[in-house]
């Protein structure tokens, strides 16, 4: 085991690095699910963010601007999702699945159109890559959402929209309006998660680079029982597994090299164990996915 030192600074930094996209995405999912809308389109929003960030960073030569534009693009695409789910009351699972497929198909189309490539964007220069300011920002977002959810009236509107929408209506607040705004923020913040993948963890968009992180973020949300700070911790748990997985690749343990694939499945096995409810009863918002 001497090759990997779990407590080394470099390992901790790598945990923070790989956790950053999850932190954004999980908090985005929290906003949507707290307002009562099941959010499995996180994957799609992350793809939007990863792609738009890379594109704008490439054209404007500014990664920060690219990062910012990802938020805008995610928010704009969330309107499509809200239109289906909030306005037309489509089942959120069906709409979310469709949305993920749409994004997976739309982006190669756009790369062909913009760059005549099969799915990747041109790389930005390495010195333009974002750094840990993104992680710091992600953690600030967590605490901002925590403060909003537990201290402000708007936060309580979101909570009531997920727990007892009729009660909110009776107070004269439009549940749909609350959900529109929640999903708008959700789309934007999830896209930031994607942007941190293409501008912080790497320097370009590559096809389907989210690799299921939207769903892992959802698991972190469930592990965190739909609370901002525990969800952050959930993300770090998954991040640790991912970093470990990267570290363990090709490293012999007591002389035995574990095949890469076995290590790569670790985060997914953890997801299944968590979703199967081994960590106590889930405390989902009462009206999640109901109308």
């Amino acid at each position, binding site marked *: 085991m001497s090759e990997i030192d779990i407590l080394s600074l470099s390992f901790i930094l790598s945990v923070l690095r790989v956790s950053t996209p999850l932190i954004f995405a999980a908090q985005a999912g929290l906003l949507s699910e707290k307002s009562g809308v099941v959010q499995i389109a996180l994957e799609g929003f992350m793809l939007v963010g990863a792609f738009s960030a890379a594109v704008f960073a490439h054209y404007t030569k500014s990664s920060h601007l690219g990062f910012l534009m990802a938020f805008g693009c995610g928010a704009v695409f969330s309107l499509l999702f809200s239109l289906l789910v909030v306005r037309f009351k489509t089942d959120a699972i069906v709409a979310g699945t469709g949305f993920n497929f749409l994004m997976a198909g739309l982006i190669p189309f756009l790369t062909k159109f913009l760059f005549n490539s099969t799915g990747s964007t041109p790389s930005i220069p390495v010195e333009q890559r974002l750094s840990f300011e993104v992680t710091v920002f992600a953690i600030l977002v967590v605490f901002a959402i925590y403060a909003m959810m*537990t*201290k*402000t*009236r*708007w*936060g*309580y*509107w979101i*909570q*009531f929209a997920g*727990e*007892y929408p*009729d*009660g*909110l*209506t*009776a*107070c*004269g*607040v439009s549940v749909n309006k609350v959900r529109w705004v929640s999903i708008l923020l959700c789309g934007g913040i999830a896209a930031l998660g994607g942007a941190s993948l293409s501008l912080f963890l790497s320097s370009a968009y590559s096809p389907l680079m989210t690799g299921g992180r939207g769903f892992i973020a959802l698991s972190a949300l469930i592990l965190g029982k739909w609370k901002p700070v525990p969800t952050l911790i959930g993300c770090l748990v998954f991040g640790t597994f991912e970093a470990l997985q990267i570290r363990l690749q090709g490293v012999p343990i007591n002389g035995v090299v574990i095949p890469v694939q076995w290590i790569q499945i670790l985060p997914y096995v953890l997801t299944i164990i968590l979703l199967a409810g081994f960590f106590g009863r889930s405390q989902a*918002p*009462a009206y999640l996915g109901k109308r």
Partner: protein
Amino acid sequence: MNTNIEIEFSNVGKRFGSLWANRDISFSIQKNTIHAIIGENGAGKSTIMKILFGIYPADAGIVKVGDTEVNFQSPIDAMKYKIGMVHQHFMLSPAHTALENVLLVDPEQKPFEFYFKKEKIEKIKATAQLYKFDIPWDTPVKNLGVGVQQKIEILKLLCLDNQILIFDEPTAVLTPHEIDELLNQLLELKKQGKTVILITHKLKEVKRVADMITIFRKGQLVGSYPSSQLDEKEMAAKMVGKAVSFEKRAFERFPDAQTVITLDHVQFKDETRTFNLHLALQRGEILGIAGIEGHGQEKLIPFLLNPKSFKYSGQVLILGRSADSLGNRGARELSVGVFPEDRLRLGVLPELKAFQNFVLGYQRKSHWFKKGFIDWSKVKTLTQNMFDKFKVEPNNIDLTFQSFSGGNQQKIVVARELFHNPDIIIAAHPTRGVDIGAIELIHEQLIQAQEKGKAVLLISSELDELLKLSDRILVIRNGKITSEHGRADFCEKAIGRSMLGVAP
């Protein structure tokens, strides 16, 4: 006289599709009174109040609050005129605390303000003290009893300084003791200068607190009367349009007291509690089960219908058969009829036609079949006979089940279950959401069954119903049967206390 009028309706009407839910309603409500609005289900009493509260816009007529003509588009408009409504189903989030729920209401709300404003909390607590409400502020609402939840609802309105308070069937979910408390609170509200509107169909309560009574029948106004002018019988007659019998039935013990259901020290568990049941149901009796909702009576039916699906200890005998000897269909193999508590979910397939539902649960009975196939024309004839006998309205067996009103739905379920002439009838809340006419019919059927020597197990949250029909009442509390009351010494107070678990 005129200056004392708080609310005035002139020729108000409301249409749903081609149906008028309210038509030509004109009456007024005096300031600082308790005004009761009574009528059967579907008589339009809730609709008119929903118009006043801005949930529905009126399709015709004029509503005046004070001297101003109003046309509310949403409850927010109504709130501006200091009108508040306590809904039948509480508008509370179970996961949030009492305080969080009360804080949600605020007409001057801004999205980005701090939620827990100190002066607002102080005002809420002061108001609670003024009206002597004792509320555990930091407990999640799901852990509080319905009585307390209702107080939180009322408090929400009081904190807004509402002048006009509408109560929609407030006593439907309360125990006798809590009802008593609520009625006193209504009187207290009146003393503080509020105008109270009480929508209900429980005439005893009306008689006790109301100053004025307005009666609705079939979407039309019957009239407004000072409550001193009417007694309960007259009120009921005006609501139904004919005289209604209120007498408790004469009770005769059936001579052949054969036991049909025996639960001998039965114990089983579900997710929330352990059940201890020890009872015997005899032929020719109606055994009432009383208890606060959610205290385990809802588990009694699934248990009796199929004890084998529970892990239990003790002995269960149904019609002389040990429960262990029953097949997978449990007690339904025997002659048992059930009126489930939630007829739409447990009793029928709402999208299917009435005559199709008539076969449901009895699909194995041979008399439907001709050469191995269901003979639908025979089913239709039999269904039609039962429709005629039970006076189901509209008398059309081809309609889907869900298109009937609550009372008629229940009549269909009762008709189906009684058609097979069961030896045991398990009736759970048989008259919930059912209007007075149908209640009478269902009660008559239960009494007739009892007189024919059937055994009836009656589970109900309406104590009046239990007192009227039962030969014995068992009180269930927290999954255990805590007391037994014979008809000779029925005492509403004692049963109520036993339901609450308070020592006598």
